[in-house]
């Protein structure tokens, strides 16, 4: 059986994918507009890519490969502006956020493409319920072994990224009590969660071959892990973040992940082991449910503290690496999130003020446009 080759890529490069919501301006419900939008954006030249996603109410933007936070942010802003301009002509609103607050999944229409239809057939209602919107961050790795080291070392920081990005407190018309309800929709997939504890690319290939040989999977796309290797890009892909309400925050989160990666790869501060995963699902739940107020348990160190304290502690050790990567500005934004609250908190405040979920969605649309 063919083995997966891990493409070489420049270490610590990064790229971002963002799934965005398409809503109508009347009642702010999700609307079917992806094909119409793509027809028009396809005729314009812009950096990065604008791509279809599984349903017609969703669109994905992705950046090229970047080494610095500044140019990444500039590219995201350019793509956003192209998209907003086109959407204005079609009277479609574009919003960030991890889930639409009140859409009903039965109303979604699957994109007319073979892969999408196949996924829909296999997963049934899950495919439509999967109308949730995430940010994916790619981090470049020199080789497969490095990628697996980084994957296991980074997994300790998934709760941090979940809590910082959480932007899906409302789902199907109710307050879920979670800061990120989106990840609950991801859990429903059979191959979600964490990657197995294999440390070398050879060992990973053995695992992959066994899974494929047994007929459990066909390709890497069948894994819905929180972090997964992306051998054809030569990256690891962090998939736990909700799409934030602004591309500015998305860029800051990517730069935070990049800076974490540099620290982890250079200083190798944590010993990676299966045991490090002991508290993984507990911490992840805490982050989804309580956001930055959630509790974080370090099973090996035997310590417990709030995720806000955890993030602040990480920012302290990252300072020197941030200087190297010119990501100090991004880390200041991360510190501001810890101080001022994540997007889920902002959304709850808006809803408390107006009492209207459609109104909340429209404020999300305006916030993506304003960028603040």
């Amino acid at each position, binding site marked *: 059986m063919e083995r997966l080759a891990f493409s070489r890529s420049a270490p610590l490069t990064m790229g971002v994918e963002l799934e965005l919501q398409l809503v109508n301006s009347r009642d702010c419900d999700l609307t079917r*507009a992806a*094909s119409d939008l793509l027809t028009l954006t396809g005729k314009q030249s812009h950096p990065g890519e604008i791509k279809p996603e599984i349903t017609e109410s969703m669109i994905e933007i992705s950046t090229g490969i970047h080494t610095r936070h500044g140019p990444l942010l500039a590219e995201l802003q350019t793509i956003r502006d192209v998209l907003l301009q086109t959407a204005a*002509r*079609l*009277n479609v609103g574009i919003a960030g956020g991890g889930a639409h607050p009140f859409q009903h999944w039965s109303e979604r*229409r699957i994109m007319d493409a073979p892969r999408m239809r196949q996924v829909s057939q296999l997963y049934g209602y899950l495919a439509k319920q999967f109308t949730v919107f995430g940010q994916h961050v790619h981090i470049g790795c020199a080789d497969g072994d490095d990628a697996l080291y980084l994957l296991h070392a980074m997994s300790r920081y998934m709760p941090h990224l979940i809590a910082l990005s959480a932007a899906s407190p409302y789902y199907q018309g109710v307050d879920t009590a979670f800061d990120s309800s989106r990840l609950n929709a991801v859990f429903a997939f059979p191959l979600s969660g964490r990657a197995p504890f294999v440390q070398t690319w050879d060992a990973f290939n053995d695992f992959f071959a066994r899974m494929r040989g047994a007929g459990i999977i066909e390709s890497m796309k069948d894994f819905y892990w929180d972090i997964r290797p992306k051998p054809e890009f030569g990256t690891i892909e962090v998939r736990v973040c909700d799409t934030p309400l602004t591309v500015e925050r998305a860029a800051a989160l990517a730069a935070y992940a990049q800076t974490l990666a540099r620290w982890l790869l250079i200083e190798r501060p944590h010993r990676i082991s299966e045991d490090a995963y002991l508290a993984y699902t507990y911490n992840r739940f805490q982050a989804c449910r309580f956001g930055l107020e959630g509790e974080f348990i370090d099973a090996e160190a035997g310590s417990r503290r709030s995720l806000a304290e955890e993030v602040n502690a990480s920012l302290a050790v990252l300072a020197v690496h941030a200087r190297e990567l010119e990501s100090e500005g991004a880390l200041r934004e991360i510190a501001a999130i810890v101080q001022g609250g994540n997007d889920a908190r902002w959304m709850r405040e808006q809803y408390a003020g107006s009492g*209207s979920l*459609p109104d909340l969605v429209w404020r999300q649309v305006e916030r993506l446009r304003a960028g603040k």
Partner: protein
Amino acid sequence: MNELFFLPDLRGIGATLPWTALMLLAAVLAGEAVQRWLRLPRLLGWSAVGALLGPHVLGLLDRGALDAMLPLLDLALGVVLFELGQRVDPGWLRRNPWLLGTSVLESALAFAAMCAVLLALGAPPLVAAAAAAIGISTAPAVTLTLVRDLRAQGQVTERLLMLSALNTVYAVVAVGVLLSWLAREHAHDWQAAVLHPLYLIFGSLAAATAFAAATLGLLRLLGRRHDAQFFCILALVAAAVWAADALKLSMALTLLGYGVAIRILDRERLFVALSFGRVGGILLILLFAVTAARIDLGVLATGAVAGGVLVAARVAGKALGVFALAPASGLPLRKASLLALALTPMSAVALVLLHDTTRLYPQLGPSLAAIVISAVAILELLGPLLAQFALVRAGETAEPEA
């Protein structure tokens, strides 16, 4: 004395049958049958039952019964126009001025084409102009019902709703201007010729704004309870229909404007975007059935050619207008052709405008009615078929229920 006195006496029972309820029942069944077995729009079934039971075919519903339902019909049309107005986003025209251009062009070209062919057929200029003005409007009830029934979303759908709202406004204004010209010819009174259309337009808009402001004031007191909002709005729509009639304003303009104004003025989104649900559904069924019942297919004998030509010219004019500005307004040509097809329906609003015209100027009556009613009769079947075809082919309808 009859020992079985408690049994009903069935002689003469026909006179007391609840015809409205029976028509509703038959229409609902026909609608479902048409949808399930023929995969055609439900509203065709509703119309077919109306036409069948009406005075011109079986005669089970006589003119008196139909006239008794007129107030209900006005309310139904009011509800449709209000909802259409409320679905239309005026801000879109600002963000995409080419869409406004499309709307003006498709209406103007359709008007010119219809006028030209009717003149070529030898119709008197006034009749040709009046018929062409009435033909500008795309049936709001048909488009809205289809969009809701098919749960359609997308550019063809949104533009269809926008264009039918706008061309209904143009049609009302064009007919108003035409009528005041007629007034000038007959009364030699310049003042009325100028003031009447102005009163029609600005009076209707003022009434619409007043109703919208009052509604939002009430909603602020009511809060966001959906059912309370619903009853409140239904009552106010009925009041607006009455007010438009009492003040001799345009009902179509007032109700469309009412819906649009609510949307513009509602900055706090107090107004939970609501559809009229089941009650609205009953009104719509009656609207389609009674509209069809009132069409005398006999006019086709004299008007079929003129009506058919009018329909063809109208489709061509609208298509040309939509195509010309499609690239500029951001619509691919494939979707533009589907949008042009979807603009075909012509129904209740056309009959209302016809009624208004012939009431004021009976001398236009027979020849104008023959043309317009023939066109409506042809499009009663063709219009919904083409519009549904367009929405389905555009890929904008919800997936069929399994």
